């Protein structure tokens, strides 16, 4: 894996639903090596405001055509500028960054759970799982019908897709984690539980998915998010709490807390659900 700093061309841009954009980018060197769950660190502006890059998940990879796609929601100044960049413009990116989702060879059946824009980070994984001949079930959560992402794409790939909307405007009414619990009850009786669960979305969703998976004794992997600086492991800005023995002897004589800070950018963004410390923040 080589981390590259490149200028890559925007081939197309589409507002798939209000405030959510799909960009296709010409990036053979990224497409050749990108793994499911990795991200790009993108300079959205051409000057110093906003100053920092934005970490954006790689949505889809096409190594044959040398193209990648990103799907992102406009959430602030950086993503707003990114959405306004015209087709043909060059984007300054660093990537591919981060570790990746790990599909185990013995997992015959896997489940992907995406909340809101979190769905964006799961498509490449779904494609890979199907390519490997696994049974793939996808649970998509959204506030309402209009904001349901990638349902058709997943279906076309051959995944079994379920949808939950908070307002009930489409399919299951409620949280996608409630739908998850319901489906796991049913599956347990029918065809058996999935062997792995993967999730990306808001922190409460990841926490709940991890808890449910832990109770059912299913391996879970979640994509974490934190405000990020360099993206390459140098600045230590994007850490999250991970269970582990801290070798820190400098705790004023008190026993060390049972967690360490790991970098989302380089140790993550994918962590096992049961190794994350899901507390306060």
């Amino acid at each position, binding site marked *: 894996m080589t981390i590259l700093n490149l200028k890559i061309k925007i081939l197309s841009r589409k507002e798939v639903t209000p405030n959510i954009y799909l960009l296709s980018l010409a990036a053979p060197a990224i497409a050749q090596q990108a793994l499911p769950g990795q991200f790009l660190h993108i300079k959205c502006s051409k000057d110093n405001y906003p*100053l*920092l890059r934005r970490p954006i998940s790689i949505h889809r990879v096409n190594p044959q055509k040398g193209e990648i796609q990103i799907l992102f929601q406009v959430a602030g100044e950086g993503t707003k500028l990114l959405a306004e960049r015209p087709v043909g413009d060059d984007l300054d990116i660093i990537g591919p960054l981060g570790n990746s989702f790990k599909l185990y060879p013995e997992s015959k059946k896997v489940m992907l759970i995406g909340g809101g824009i979190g769905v964006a980070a799961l498509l490449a994984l779904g494609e890979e799982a199907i390519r490997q001949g696994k049974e793939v079930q996808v649970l998509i959560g959204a506030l309402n019908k209009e904001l349901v992402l990638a349902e058709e794409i997943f279906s076309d790939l051959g995944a079994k897709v379920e949808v939950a909307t908070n307002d009930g405007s489409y399919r299951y009414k409620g949280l996608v984690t409630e739908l998850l619990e319901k489906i796991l009850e049913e599956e347990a009786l029918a065809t058996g539980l999935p062997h792995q669960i993967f999730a990306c979305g808001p922190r409460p969703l990841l926490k709940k998915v991890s808890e449910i998976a832990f109770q059912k004794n299913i391996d879970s992997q979640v994509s974490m998010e934190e405000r990020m600086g*360099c993206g390459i492991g140098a600045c230590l800005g994007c850490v999250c709490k991970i269970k582990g023995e801290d070798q820190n002897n400098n705790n004023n004589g008190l026993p060390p807390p049972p967690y360490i800070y790991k970098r989302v950018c380089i140790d993550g963004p994918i962590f096992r659900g049961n190794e994350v410390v899901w507390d306060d923040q």
Partner: protein
Amino acid sequence: MINNNKPNLAVEIAGIKLKNPVLTASGTFGYGQEFTPFLDLNKLGAIVLKGITLKPRRGNPPPRIIETPSGMLNAIGLQNVGVEALIREKLPYLQRFNTPVIINISGDTREEYIELARRLEEVSPELPISALEVNISCPNVQKGGLAWGIDASATYELVNCLRKATTLPLIVKLTPNVTNIKIIAQAAEEAGADALSLINTLVGMAVDLDSRKPELANISGGLSGPAVKPVALWMVWQVFQEVHIPIIGMGGIMKTRDALEFMVVGARAVSVGTANLVNPRAAIEIIEGIEKYLIENQIREVKELVGSMKI
């Protein structure tokens, strides 16, 4: 001057010969290795490593950084591997490069600083350690840090003790969070500092209006980036007029012209900091830019620029 005759970018700081005046600011360049996919470490004037303490530190809870207009606040809290892991795991890698390595040191107590300095001097014959940068200005830890740097007599005492404890060159990093930086700079010089580096970050905060919560878990953080450049220039200029030891200037250097401005107001070398987080090649681009500037302006030696401001 003939244009194909390359200008001389070399400068000397604290007895260390630098092939060019561009360093990487502590905390923004990790332990150097993180940047090797993007640049040749041999091309840098010097590498200043992430601040180290005697024992490993876990650092502050997240969120640790937040972007602000043309800048950012950070409150990392000196998370680091501790000096023994630095010696064992980080420094050997840097041996293969022909670039001076400067180690930024921090401590809660005077004794910790001294023990750190002694330990690093002990291993310095075998490992790449050219100088120590004494961090007396970290705004993000509860004890030590900034407390030294805001008081002239505390600064004098600490630097003086370190001066007696080690023969390694000492670069004292000053904080801008003071009423009169000249007094602190003078104290450091009198205590035996070989050079000064300034500025560390400016203490600030950011608030999320919707939740009415601070953006940083630490509440306050250190401001860096283009937003602080005018403050940094002014402080370098003030200190330049006050001391005789060389100054490493920093604060919001994003491009070549920023670096040259710092030299004009008195910095003999400069450090690129926050820019590394945005553009991992920033330091190299600035070095190339300085060379181009010297050629275009027919300046033979970069040191001619130092303190050349006309008033």
